[in-house]
């Protein structure tokens, strides 16, 4: 009988470990973790990864798309962010995580159109097969991950504190975090939340 109990305790422990492990998987990465690299197709047909950016001091990885109104409201601000920081070593890398079968407006062709219309100065990658966004733990568009030179996550969240009105923004989370990194410090705010669109997937 004792053996049976011992066995069940062991079994429960093993199951527990399994559950814990899967949880970490689905929750993605947190501030302080090393961000996983990826190899995704850019709108110009080239494959881009974090390692494509030699001499980067950091990476502004943004899960965004064509169709979400919140993503659209931030388009111009992402362009300005890239224009301001890419030369300083912090490029914007946009990734569309949506399944185009669920959201046809987010197909690779539509991405190319959108990028051409808005003259995106940054890479706009397609998460074909939807493997990258779960590894990061992105849940919405837009969803920003700021990485430092060593690909350590330093900030996760929104670009700033007012999606609807750029002129009413009082805190620029990402820019503040970059300023801290540039000064060799840790960002004061490392995590924020924002309303956004759910990432579109086929129901399992």
């Amino acid at each position: 009988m004792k053996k049976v109990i011992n066995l069940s305790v062991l079994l429960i422990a093993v199951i527990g470990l399994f559950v814990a492990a899967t949880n970490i998987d689905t929750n993605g990465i947190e501030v302080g973790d090393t961000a996983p690299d990826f190899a995704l197709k850019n709108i110009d047909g080239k494959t881009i990864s974090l390692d494509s950016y030699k001499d980067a001091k950091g990476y502004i990885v943004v899960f965004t798309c064509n169709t979400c109104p919140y993503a659209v409201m931030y388009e111009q601000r992402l362009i300005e962010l890239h224009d301001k920081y890419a030369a300083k070593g912090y490029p914007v890398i946009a990734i569309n995580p949506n399944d185009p079968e669920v959201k046809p407006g987010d197909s690779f062709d539509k991405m190319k159109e959108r990028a051409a219309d808005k003259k995106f100065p940054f890479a706009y990658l397609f998460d074909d097969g939807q493997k990258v966004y779960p590894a990061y733990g992105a849940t919405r568009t837009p969803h920003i991950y700021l990485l430092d030179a060593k690909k350590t996550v330093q900030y996760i969240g929104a670009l700033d504190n007012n999606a609807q009105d750029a002129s009413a923004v009082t805190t620029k989370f990402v820019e503040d975090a970059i300023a801290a990194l540039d000064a060799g410090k840790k960002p004061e705010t490392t995590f924020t939340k924002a309303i956004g669109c759910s990432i579109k997937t086929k129901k399992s």
Partner: protein
Amino acid sequence: MYKFILTVFSVAFLLVACQQDQKTGESTTQTVAATVSTIKTMDGLPPIYENYEELATIFEQRNDTTYVINFWSTWCAPCVKELPYFEALNRKYEAEKVKVILVSLDFPKQLETKLKPFLAENKLQSEVLVLTDPDANSWVDKVNPKWSGAIPATVVYKGETNKFYEKSFENLEELEEIITPFL
């Protein structure tokens, strides 16, 4: 002059009346509406909350009603798709102390052009409120710490028991399943 004094008196009386309202501590949304002036009203639209703190009372009811609170928007396709299931839930459980509240996160600029026609066309029977507080980082956690901010999102609560869902519902049965433990 006489009229002026009268006006002053009536304003003073109203102020006192409002304060008394506050003292009774009733946390119904109506009481808040009477005492705080930032809840906007517009023709053909539900009450518009510009500040989350004023909306928060809908999560603070401590009675025997099960509240099903859904965050949605006319621009969110999966939200619009699941609205009929919330409406059906509201109808079916009307007699069983289930209250559905649909919190629209439509943008201030689109209330007239998008939300108003949508409500006129769909004639929602559940209570609808509008939340336009732009500083989501300050209030998303208050709704539920598990919420990332993506919509649709749904809170079910009764008294101190609280469940949160950051997902879409595919039919009425899925919603019934989550409220049954509360009934």
